């Protein structure tokens, strides 16, 4: 069995600064050994450990979609030792990625359903992966209506601007982009917090409608009552959690909530599952 702590060596192929505060960058990695790409087969919603020798590892959601080949992408917020170092690395530098890790969004369940994606701030990465995955021509017929409610503090803080614009132009996905506030007179989308926009734009509850929520705790806190009001069942609300992690494979012991490890049993849980777990996250 392969050593699960051993990362696949990768080269940084491209670095894109995503936001105006320059704290979010997207890193596109190419595997040094092309065969590793096959070994790294993943599903939208999974994450990986980005591994920088001498600095350590950080768990980051996979932003690329399994339908995109030849590379993997991660959008990283600059917060700690490893992410700050990564932000200063250059195209061509060698590092490692270890994964894919965790469960994913429940694609077997979501097939044939309406999917409502609700995201805020930099937690949009695995949601981007999911949208790209669902919009792939081979996959799109498997899903019914797709709604995306995505907000950031201001237009300059939205991730993946070009893609958002492209999705806006399509008629097989309902985009509801919003910002908390802006003084840009040309802003042509919504203004308001994500929970408010969700209240206005999210489709009503239906046994065939599932919501995926990913965002800062405060957004989740206020979005949940909105979905409750709309009548969403708690097993139709899907969330992805964050925790401090090290091993990523359920062994090192730190990221548990109750008996479940966020790294291995999660990071994706339904609200119904979370209701049965201690409130310790």
């Amino acid at each position: 069995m392969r050593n699960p702590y051993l990362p696949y060596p990768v080269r940084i192929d491209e670095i894109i600064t995503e936001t105006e505060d320059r704290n979010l960058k997207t890193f596109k990695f190419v595997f040094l050994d092309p065969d590793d790409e096959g070994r790294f087969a993943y599903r939208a919603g999974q994450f990986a450990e980005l591994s920088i020798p001498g600095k350590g590892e950080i768990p980051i959601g996979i932003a690329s979609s399994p339908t995109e080949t030849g590379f993997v992408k991660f959008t990283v917020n600059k917060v700690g030792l490893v992410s700050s170092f990564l932000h200063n690395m250059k195209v061509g530098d060698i590092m490692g990625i270890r994964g894919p890790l965790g469960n994913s969004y429940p694609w077997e369940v979501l097939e044939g359903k309406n999917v409502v994606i609700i995201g805020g701030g930099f937690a949009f990465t695995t949601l981007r992966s999911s949208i790209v995955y669902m919009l792939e021509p081979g996959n799109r017929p498997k899903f019914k209506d797709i709604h995306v409610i995505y907000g950031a503090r201001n237009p300059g803080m939205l991730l993946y601007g070009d893609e958002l614009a492209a999705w806006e132009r399509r008629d097989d996905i309902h985009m509801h982009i919003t910002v908390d506030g802006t003084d840009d007179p040309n802003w042509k989308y919504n203004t308001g917090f994500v929970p408010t926009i969700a209240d206005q734009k999210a489709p009503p509850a239906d046994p065939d409608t599932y919501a995926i929520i990913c965002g800062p705790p405060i957004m989740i806190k206020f979005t949940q009552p909105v979905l409750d009001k709309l009548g969403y069942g708690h097993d139709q609300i899907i969330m992805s959690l964050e925790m401090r992690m090290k091993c990523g494979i359920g062994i090192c012991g730190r990221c548990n909530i109750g008996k479940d490890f966020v790294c291995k049993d999660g990071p994706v849980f339904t609200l119904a599952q979370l209701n049965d777990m201690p409130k310790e996250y």
Partner: protein
Amino acid sequence: MTFVKIDKNAWEAGLARLAAAYRLFGPVKEGHSHEFKALDAGQRPDMAYVNTRRSPKALIYPQSEKMFDFSLDETQADHHILREAEKDYAPCAVIGIRPCDADAFLLVRKNFDTPEYRDPYWVKAYEATTFVGLACSAPCSTCFCTTAGSGPFHEAGLDLLLADEGGTYLAKVLTPKGASLVEAAGWGDATDAQAAESRLQELRAAAEERIVSRVPTAKLKDQKINPLFEAPFWQEVAFSCINCGTCTYVCPTCWCFDIQDEVHGKEGIRYRNWDSCMYPLFTHHGSGHNPRNQKTQRVRQRFMHKLKYYVDKYGDGIQCVGCGRCIRLCPVNIDIRRVCNLMNHFDATACAIPAA
């Protein structure tokens, strides 16, 4: 199952022969207490010990262990690529381990050796090791192994069980690994199995009689996680805790670790260290958020993990073998027996505070 009688004169010679085929480890007196150590040539395990201060878990799972090395020197072809650390997994034998400590490895194995992932360091070290147990005839007052799923003559996790009978050891061969070791040692005096087994049971009953500490665990599995998590006693349980890592470090079943990189010049290693749920840093997010910011939360985590989460996750008994080390060494006398009692007998409905 075969039994062998080992004359204590043959014991020494057997150990000497074993040293040629195995790296030997055993209890050695260090200062005023015993520790498991690699036995140097000619050194003998001190079989008169009661129990070691630290558990023998470090034999399989060292407190600090190298995982990889790497070079940051860009003139090297494999710079910035991790290389597997060279390890020696030649056969080892641990002589004189107590049954509770050996049983602990089985509990820990559930964590390190899973259907999805196998921790190669732990699994290889464990598989390379033969465990020669020494049945416990004089347990401490803090031992509660018999109610923690283990016992002074517990066989699970051992390859060979020795019972001290004065001039001889009565040895029960429990696995093929144990049989190979007996053969390598040349301890050949097979003895009547039926008589030996009944003698062993006699000794076992006498030893179990001497275990005075008990923990009730029967109701733990039927407790609901959330009410137990919110039980009112945690604040009182945790009050005296100073959040050191003693309980977790001396515990044979605590397995949590941290991964660190360290670089000197252009060469570096990635290694892991035991970590402890008692430390705030254990769950501190990069963002500054910490889900277990308060000491009460951390103390609760340790006991909930051992006595509830583990029970539920694996459908097993408690994640504790009753060795009593945490009770003996806790600097402020937090006693797992007391906490287990509280948890087991917790009645959420009785404790509910009526609405004002």
